[in-house]
Structures are given as C-alpha cells and as structure tokens.
C-alpha cells in the first residue's frame, strides 16, 4: 500500500518526512511535542491526526509502504516521534479504563474470572452486532466491513510479536491460538484471508490498506492499541488481556453478524469469516483468559492489573468504534455517501 493521505499537520509532516527526507524534522518534532503536551485527557483516542500518524509509524513494523524506504522503521527520528505520540495515547487508555479495571480487580476469583466478568458486565456503547443482525442496511454492513478491514486484514499479526516475550505454558498456548488464527497451517484459511473473501463477496476491495483513508479515529486507535501493547515488552500483560477480552466478546457477536450478512443477502461465503469465529473464539477465549493470562498472573510474570488494563482498553475502544459507526449512520441516514454506488 501507499502512505495514507494526511489528516492534519502532524500526519502531513510525517508523510513528508517518510517520503522526502528530513528537512522539516524540527517542525515535526515541535508539532508532535506541542500536541502531546496540550492534549486534553482522553482526546488522544479521538484525534484522527495523531492516530493516523501513530498508525503509519506502527505499519512500518508490519507490512510497510510501497513508497517508503523500510529503513525508516528503525530511524531514530521515527522512534523518537513514536515515543512522543504513544505517551498521550497510553495515558488516555489508562484514564478511560481505570474504573473498569478497578471493578474487575474486585471480582473474587482468578484473572480469567475477572476478564470474563468484565467482558460480560461492560456496558458502554451500542450493541453493534444486534443492530447488524436485525436492522442494518446492506450499505451499512459494507461500511462496517470497510472499517473492520483495518484490523481483520492483519488479524492476529500484532500478537505474534508477543510470542518471544513469553515462556512455558503461556507461550505454548499463545502459539496454539495463533496457529488457529493462521488457519492451522492451511493456506486459504488464515483468518485474514477469510475476511478478504468477505470483502470480495460484499463487492469491496480486499487489498491491504484499501480503506485506510476512510478509517475513523476509534478504528485507527483500536489497531494502534494492539500495536502499542504488542510491540512493548513492558505491556505484554496488557497485550494478552486485550487478546482475552477480544476473544471473549467474539463468538456471540460473530453469530449475529453472520446472520446479518445472510439477512442482507451477502451470502454464505461472505458470512464464513464470522461463522468460523463462533466456534474458534469459543476455544480462543478459554485459551487466552485461562491458559495464557491465567498462567502469566499465577507465575508472577505480569499482574492482574496489567491484564485487566489491556482487557478494558479493548472493550472501551470497541465501544468507541460502535458509537462512531452508529452516529455516522444516524447523521447521514446512509453510509456510502462518499462511495460511488455499485
């Protein structure tokens, strides 16, 4: 993919740096530091310019950009900028999750019980999966799929970075989970390939990054949270807590979304990604919550608080994504205004 279009001064300057070299570096640095210093609490989650800038930097560590030299991934200018932008992002995630983390910690049980109680009791945001099952129009479903493509087309990849940071049973079970995400070694069955099929069946572009310019701030922030957690060793507990909450809020919603895809006429091939996740994630939630997070906390490698921070961050960001989508649908009464009809 090519670098996305800029969404503000920060991403504009970053684009320029990655494409042209360093002459505006001082301005970029000052802009980033100024933004980070003056950012009101929580607003980092909502700031398209900041989230897109972080997303571009993280993407250098995944698939890169056709128009950017891969050496920028480890350039000190980029690493420094990443650290400056991560600080308000991580703080906003902590601020948005503290009350949930505290309530989950008060649950009498082990960390798996706490993760499941948190996932079951979390009540922010509208229930997108019920709306898709019952009411969404085909255009709204396609809008939803475009936003989800930002993560699902690289599904599971962030967590693979965590494998070498774990040991023993937690590592074995993370590999077991990832192996399933990657289709059990069968090409064509990788979960991100199943999602590509869903996109094609919905007459959408399955090219990696095709809809990045449409991605809203919460969608970028959700992807960035996984990169933040999974690319920092110190946040490995949050990375696995995020994974556990993601898996624990998947089977039942995926069943509803599969039904919504069939109801709106996209067909069984389109629904297969969601259908597969009904059973897969009923396994994965147990692996992640009990055998990965449970082991990590029991052995003292990470704390329950680390895990629950990541779990709550997953749920908060998912709620922000759902809220943003529903708000756009209410505003416009349609979802594909920016896109030519088929």
């Amino acid at each position, binding site marked *: 993919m090519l670098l996305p279009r800029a969404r503000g001064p920060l991403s504009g300057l970053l684009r320029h740096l990655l494409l042209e070299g360093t002459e505006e570096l001082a301005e970029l640095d000052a802009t980033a530091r100024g933004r980070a210093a003056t950012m009101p609490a929580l607003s980092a989650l909502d700031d398209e310019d900041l989230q897109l800038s972080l997303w571009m930097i993280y993407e250098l560590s995944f698939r890169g950009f056709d128009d950017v030299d891969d050496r920028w991934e480890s350039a000190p200018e980029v690493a420094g900028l990443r650290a400056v932008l991560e600080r308000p992002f991580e703080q906003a995630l902590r601020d948005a999750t503290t*009350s949930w983390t505290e*309530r*989950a910690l*008060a*649950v*009498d*049980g082990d960390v798996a*019980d*706490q993760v*499941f*109680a*948190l996932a*079951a*009791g979390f009540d922010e945001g509208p229930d997108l999966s019920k709306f898709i099952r019952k009411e969404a129009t085909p255009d709204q479903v396609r809008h939803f799929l475009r936003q989800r493509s930002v993560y699902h087309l690289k599904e599971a990849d962030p967590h693979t970075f965590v494998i070498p940071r774990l040991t023993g049973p937690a590592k074995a079970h993370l590999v*077991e989970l990832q*192996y*399933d995400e990657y289709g*059990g070694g*069968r090409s064509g069955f990788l979960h991100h390939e199943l999602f590509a099929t869903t996109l094609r069946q919905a007459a959408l572009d399955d090219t990696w990054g095709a809809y990045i310019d449409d991605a809203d701030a919460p969608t970028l922030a959700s992807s960035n949270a996984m990169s933040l957690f999974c690319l920092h060793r110190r946040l490995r507990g949050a990375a696995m807590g995020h994974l556990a909450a993601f898996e624990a809020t*998947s*089977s*039942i919603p995926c*069943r509803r979304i599969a039904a919504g895809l069939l109801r709106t006429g996209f067909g069984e091939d389109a629904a297969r990604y969601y259908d597969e996740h*009904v*059973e*897969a*994630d*009923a*396994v994965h*939630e*147990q*692996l992640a919550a*009990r*055998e990965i997070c449970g082991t990590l906390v029991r052995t003292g490698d990470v704390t329950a608080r680390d895990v629950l921070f990541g779990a709550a961050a997953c749920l908060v960001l998912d709620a922000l994504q759902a809220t943003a989508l529903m708000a756009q649908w209410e505003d416009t009464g349609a979802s594909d205004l920016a896109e030519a009809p088929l």
Partner: protein
Amino acid sequence: MTDSIGTPATEVVLCPGGPALIRSDVAVVDVIVAEGQSVARRPVVALCRCGRTGRAPWCDGTHKLAGGPTAKTLPTRKDEP
C-alpha cells in the same frame, strides 16, 4: 493413554462454567462426532458441557449468556444503589 515419555496423548481441561478443552494426538474428537457433521481441524477444541450450544458438540459461548452458578459478576458501580 500415554506416549513413551509419559505425556498423555489426550489432555482434557475442564473450564469452570464453560466447555472442556481437548488436545489430542489421536483424533478422539472425530470418533464422537458423526462423520461430515463437523470436522475438528483446530489444534484444540472446546466441547460444550452446558448443553445449550447451537453448534453441538462444540461450545459456541452460549454458556455465558445465562450466567450460571460459577459465573462471577462485576461489583456494582460506586454511584449505583
């Protein structure tokens, strides 16, 4: 059944309030599922123990909907009665 170094060929993990996870060197899962109905392709499977799944014999997460005796819940918010 164990292999030559004493590792069980089949491991069963009972998840409180949820399914039984089964890891197996032998295709024990294929034996109990009618052929063609559902193929156990994943490295570990979850067998429903609550009887409410819509994907028998596999767990589909439905056990979480009704709570149940072992389900833990969040304490109420401080600002709630």
